[in-house]
């Protein structure tokens, strides 16, 4: 059966309304305050380290995002940890909140398709995250200019923008997850808890679980040195099920031009390489292209799940 009319009619209206709601909501203000404070702290720490240790570096600005000073982690690490929280805050009651407010049936009675509701919710959330990220990045760059006294190089800018794009995809994964939970679970509190549990497991505990699973799947054999590599690779494959590991690998490569690989490197592979020489941006991107595709794929997969569940849902609660 074919349907008349565009499924995207009204998407922009819903997305902008959602974005406006998020921008003015107290919960968004609180979470962004948290992110801003930690980010400022991390960058301030990094500036202190950089001015104390680094004499000359062609990619000084990228160091702002990756250098950590105890006890604070680096800006990139902070973002990898806190950004999911922002996305979950924006998405956990996207669909079930409409049911709870009893606005869903009225909304669906407007001349739009259901598709527009879900697309609008997702795009609205993503728009807010994009604005927040851009603001954050500009603030950090500004702080850097102020305290380091140097403008960012063009290489810095290109890598920084690529990093922003990947960060947005990473946030999109968590936003899609939160929206999927909000579609499947009827109570907003339960869906928030479910999304937060997944976040905790994947960002905090996954790093501990992955080696455990790897050692049972691929045990070490003291007589066979190759088993060390097999175990490492198994562990890495399991760790990559978490979007945070994927994001961490992309960050490491994009923000550190001298990084060559996300996996083990052998001496024969390093033959002829100038140690510490920066890779061109495109080469760095190519190394982590699978990770980037993985993040985008996870986002699309989760969104599709939410989409299918939502399309089949009965309107009456």
């Amino acid at each position, binding site marked *: 059966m074919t*349907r*008349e*009319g565009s499924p995207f009619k009204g998407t922009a209206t819903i997305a902008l309304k959602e974005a406006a*709601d998020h921008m003015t909501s107290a919960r968004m203000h609180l979470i962004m305050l948290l992110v801003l404070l930690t980010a400022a702290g991390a960058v301030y720490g990094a500036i202190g380290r950089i001015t104390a240790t680094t004499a000359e570096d062609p990619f000084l600005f990228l160091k702002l995002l990756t250098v950590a000073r105890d006890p604070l982690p680096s800006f990139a690490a902070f973002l990898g940890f806190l950004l999911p929280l922002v996305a979950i805050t924006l998405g956990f009651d996207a669909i079930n909140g409409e049911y709870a*407010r009893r606005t869903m049936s009225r909304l669906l009675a407007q001349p739009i398709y259901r598709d527009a509701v879900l697309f609008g919710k997702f795009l609205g959330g993503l728009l807010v995250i994009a604005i927040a990220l851009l603001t954050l990045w500009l603030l950090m760059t500004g702080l850097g200019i102020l305290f380091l006294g140097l403008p960012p190089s063009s290489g810095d800018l290109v890598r920084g923008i690529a990093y922003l794009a990947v960060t947005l995809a990473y946030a999109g994964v968590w936003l899609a997850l939160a929206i999927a939970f909000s579609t499947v679970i009827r109570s907003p509190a339960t869906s928030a808890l479910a999304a937060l549990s997944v976040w905790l497991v994947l960002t905090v505990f996954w790093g501990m679980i992955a080696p455990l699973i790897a050692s049972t799947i691929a045990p070490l054999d003291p007589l066979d040195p190759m088993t060390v590599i097999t175990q490492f690779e198994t562990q890495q494959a399991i760790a990559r099920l978490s979007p945070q590991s994927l994001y961490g690998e992309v960050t490491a490569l994009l923000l550190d031009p001298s990084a060559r690989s996300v996996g083990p490197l052998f001496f024969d592979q390093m033959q002829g390489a100038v140690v510490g020489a920066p890779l061109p941006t495109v080469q760095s991107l190519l190394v982590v292209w699978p990770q980037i595709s993985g993040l985008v794929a996870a986002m699309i997969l989760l969104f599709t799940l939410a989409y299918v569940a939502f399309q089949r849902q009965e309107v009456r609660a």
Partner: protein
Amino acid sequence: MSTTVIEAKGLTKRYGAALAVAGVDLSVEAGEVVGLLGPNGAGKTTTILMLLGLTEPSEGQVLILGKDPLREPLEVKRQVGYLPDTVGFYDNMSARENLSYTAELAGLSRDQARERIAAALDKVRLRDAADRQVGTYSRGMRQRLGIAELLMRDCRVAILDEPTSGLDPQATQELLDLIQTLSREGMTILLSSHMLDVVQTVCHRIALFRNGKIGFVGTVEELADRIGGGAFVVDVEADGIDLAQAARFAEGVKSIAADRDGHWLVEAERDVRPELARLVVQGGGSLRNLDLHRARLDQAYSRYFKEVAHDA
């Protein structure tokens, strides 16, 4: 000239093994106000959702304004307004903002929307509260705001689900007046309710729902004739006799209910006072009072649904 606006044939909805709506046929002419009447859970809301295409029927077909709501949902929803049961609005937005959001979704231009919203809010007497957050609104105001949305969108057909549920008598009356105004302006209205008096005052025709089927469609007068507006109730007071036993098989008597000591309510097809008097006297009792009154429609209505429950 009358044209059919809503036409449903054999609408059926199953939720798993449960049958929510079991073959509903309904047709509504332009300009009519039709009431769907029935107890909660009789399938009214499910039927409404199927008419709008918000729920896919398991069987059957719907045509609204000549269009299939499953194939051309946008076209149907553009012309058909829906006011859900206990309508919700975004509490942190004002009435005007809520309406301009739906106006934008309906594809109205900004200027057009502003004008129409102001006119609609005027009509439902919410102009003074238009810029207050909807969170502060009473239930009656929300319902009126829901009606304003239909006005603003200039719908040809309005489907209202339990528009008066939970309203106080005054708010109910205001809403019913509003519905009548809409009807006079040519809007076709389908409304559901479990309250007979609500439907009785505004609807031209009534469809009685029971167990997912329509048991009866017709005017209020036809309903009265059909479900016992013609029935007689005799109030009997007598001593020294058990009337329930004595008059059990009397001709024309449908049922006898003992009310309190020496007091019975006899339901009959015709005026059975002479027979009852004779029975009492023959049985050796002393008759104290015989009072005849015709069943009121609301009594007949509740009796109708009681019978249905017994049948089931």
